[in-house]
């Protein structure tokens, strides 16, 4: 049985279809990665149009609250096995938007992330490197983010609901004048 799993994992690592959700600036470095200079199709990674067909969800940059909702929908529509790549500093800790009222801070509080790519913005080499790393992880059976999501579903759901389903103001309305900054 384990040999069979190894074979399956080997082919899964060699053929990964990617859905790049252009959540932010990072979308601009993807065309070079796909096209002639870096050509990620060499590794069997092809962009796909719909979440149903995709194995990798590439989150390219910061997520506004409104986007987070769509990303969660997208992630839940994907079929296992599925992996998430967080692209850019913004997905790690909010990056340059650390104090923004509309940008979430840490992506893996809401969906499990298998690999983060640091930088603002990461170069295409970094993206390819992360794909190769993900391939190794998949082939060694280490990339199990989707199983973690199922196991810890309540934890993730609670985090998501806190941001998305607000029923009362987050801050108390301050009437007096406060000094900003």
């Amino acid at each position, binding site marked *: 049985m384990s040999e069979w799993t190894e074979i*399956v994992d080997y082919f899964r690592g060699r053929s990964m279809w990617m859905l790049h959700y252009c959540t932010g600036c990072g979308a601009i470095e993807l065309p070079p990665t796909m*096209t002639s200079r870096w*050509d990620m*199709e060499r*590794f069997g990674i092809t962009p796909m149009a*719909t979440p149903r*067909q995709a*194995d990798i969800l590439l989150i390219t940059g910061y997520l506004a609250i409104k986007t987070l909702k769509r990303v969660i929908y997208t992630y839940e529509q994907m079929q*296992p096995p599925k992996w998430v790549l967080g692209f850019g500093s913004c997905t790690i800790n909010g990056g340059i938007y650390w104090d923004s009222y509309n940008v979430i801070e840490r992506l893996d509080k809401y969906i499990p992330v298998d690999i983060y790519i640091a930088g603002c913005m990461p170069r295409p080499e970094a993206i390819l490197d992360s794909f190769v790393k993900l391939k190794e992880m998949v082939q060694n059976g280490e990339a199990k983010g989707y199983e973690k999501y199922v196991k810890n579903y309540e934890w993730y759901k609670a985090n998501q609901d806190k941001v998305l389903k607000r029923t009362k103001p987050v801050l108390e309305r301050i009437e007096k004048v406060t000094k900003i900054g």
Partner: protein
Amino acid sequence: MVIVEFLIKLSQGFGIGALALATGLLFGGIARKIMARIQRRYGPPFTQNFMDLFKLLSKGSVSHGWAFDLGLVAGFVPMLAALMFLPIGPFTLFPSDSSLIMIVYLMMMAYLGMAMGVLASGNPNSAIGMSRALMLMAGYEVPFAAVIFSIYFFSKTGYLTQIVAMQSGGFMNWNIVKMPLGFLAVEIVLQGMLGEKPFDQAIAPAEIASGPMVELGGKYLGFGMIQHSVALFLETGIIVDLFLGGAPNFWIFIAKQFVLYFVVVLVDAILPRLRVHEATSFFWKLPLFLGILQAVIVIIQGGVLNV
């Protein structure tokens, strides 16, 4: 002894299916490589499609109801059935005296089955995509029918093995020499049948997010891929049998198929996509004109001049 014969036929049938699938996947892989080179890329390995299919079949999948499942089976089985009537090189599994009609009919059935399945998913994108695919089908089936008519009239038979046999004895006996206009029409039709640009309206990713396939995932997409690969083999194969004189063995057969497909890929690389009504009206103009002209020529040659 009937049982032994049945078992032999069954295993042969499986063999043909596997062969067609492998050839289709390989063609797809080579096409991706050619495409990459035209686009100044290195491209994936040509075995990439096999890996993709294996991965898809090992993936989890979501069904959208019984009609969805049934539709995919209905899209996939007639395609395999049609394969059994096709002379592949010297070999035909079920020789039948109306195999041409049989294949054309079963191919159409397969697409209709597919349509039923994807419409059951309820996604408006797949509905639009399928309506486009059917509209396109209405476009290319008409010139295709005209060409089939010429073939019928010329060969006086719908028995594919016999049509192949009539073309034996060298290049000058091939139908491509005798009916060049018909061949031209059929090559254009092939572009549409395979859904390659400029006729890929049905799966236009940038317009309707890959159309009929939008809700297919995992194993379902895997079956879709199998269907496409078999269709690729079948559609190029039938043109080889009709116009390129069949083949004495399997390798020459797939070499001829590949030549046909190569032209399709090259055209695919340089042209963008038409609008769907433009594509349909294009099919009703140039290829239909060529097909009808060919039919008229054949009628005059055969009926009036008795050549």
